[in-house]
């Protein structure tokens, strides 16, 4: 499966297959993948709150390639730590709200990858690498309870990303993330005076913990 097919299948069907070996992506495949990612950005932005950040093609492509390779490393267990370091490269562009949202177009599927990686040992180099990467992209990892972000500044400085993040941690019913000092007032604002209807357990939980 090419990178373009991988992106298309991931977005449209939520399932993917990958090539059984690692080889560089074909330039024409990269070109088409860029077209698909931009189209997905346009489509997805209609469901995002407010005005989304401008498109960052570099971050979008990096994230798609990273996810593709990560799936490969889960599937092809004979590959070692050196291969992981050589192919799961961190994002080298500017970390900005634009990069956060563009990368999220595919990184939001990472929680499913963590489920796949559950079968691997906690000391597995792939698991370690994924955890390091995940900590840097908190918007996309909102649904992963085990990933507790330290720095939410890029998300909180952008109105659209801020609302989207609060939406996601409420949807995940993640008490821990919702009680984060930067998030708690926003979660309470989202629930308003209707917490008893919208999320009764959260209201009870706050009563206990505050």
């Amino acid at each position, binding site marked *: 499966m090419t990178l373009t097919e991988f992106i298309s299948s991931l977005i449209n069907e939520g399932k993917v297959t990958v090539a059984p070996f690692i080889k560089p992506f074909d330039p024409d495949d990269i070109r088409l993948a860029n*077209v698909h990612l931009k*189209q997905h950005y*346009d*489509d997805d932005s*209609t*469901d*995002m*709150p*407010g005005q989304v950040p401008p498109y960052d093609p570099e971050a979008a492509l990096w994230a798609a390639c990273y996810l593709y390779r990560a799936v490969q490393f889960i599937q092809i267990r004979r590959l070692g730590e050196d291969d992981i370091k050589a192919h799961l490269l961190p994002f080298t562009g500017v970390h900005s709200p634009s990069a956060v949202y563009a990368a999220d177009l595919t990184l939001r599927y990472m929680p499913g990858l963590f489920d796949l990686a559950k079968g691997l040992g906690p000391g597995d180099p792939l698991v370690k690498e994924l955890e390091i990467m995940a900590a840097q992209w908190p918007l996309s990892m909102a649904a992963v309870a085990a990933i507790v972000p330290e720095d939410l500044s890029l998300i909180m400085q952008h*109105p659209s990303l801020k*609302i989207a993040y*609060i*939406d996601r941690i*409420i*949807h995940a019913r993640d008490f821990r993330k919702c009680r984060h000092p930067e998030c708690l007032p926003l979660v309470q604002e*989202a*629930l*308003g005076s*209707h917490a008893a*209807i*919208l*999320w009764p357990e959260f209201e009870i939980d706050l009563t206990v913990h505050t």
Partner: protein
Amino acid sequence: MKEMIIVLAMADMTALGSIRTWPGLLVAATGDEIWVRGIAPDTTDIQLRKLPAKHTFLADTQERLFLPGKHTPHDTLKKMSWEAIASFITVELPVSAMPAHAGEDYAVRLAPTTVTGEPFAILTSLEHWKAYADTAPLIRLQRLSFAVCETGEVLIIGTPVPSMPGKVFTLRDNILLPAGYDFDPPVIGQLIPKWSGTESDTLLLFRVDGQWEKIPGQVFVRASRSAIRLTNTF
């Protein structure tokens, strides 16, 4: 390659309405299929991708048909009677998404009441609804459905009722009553469902002046930011 050609089932003909105004499109009906040609080969427009196409081909100048990504022809274009899409699909004036069936023979009266009920719906403008949805928390939107009529009025149902300018209604036995009002006399309310022959998923929306409308359940759409943003009146 000079053009893209898509094939749809005849049953999906109305879906072509979304691309009816595209310049240069030609349409031909054959059997239970509709063929559409004249689409630029690199088109990625969302309106096109949303069409329920059975097949997509790329055609060269010799009218050979290629499957996307394939270099050998799949077939050749059969002779068909092509006509402009604008004449193939004629325009019908849109019916209201919130079709009104005004009561004509029954003079129902409403009067202010001190009995309070929980708000269940709000009648507002599309402009207010869009402004609300733009930044509303998802957990609130997900509990709502809405229907729009061609005048731009939007009826939003579900709880909690969103806070925005508009007329609030309470719900009782599929009847939406203006908040703070009841039938005069109240016992009329028990007779209305039977008298109106209302189906179980249909709401009866009463105005303060006693006018009412039947709103079938199928005209409501689940609220999502994209659904609200893409809603327009004609």
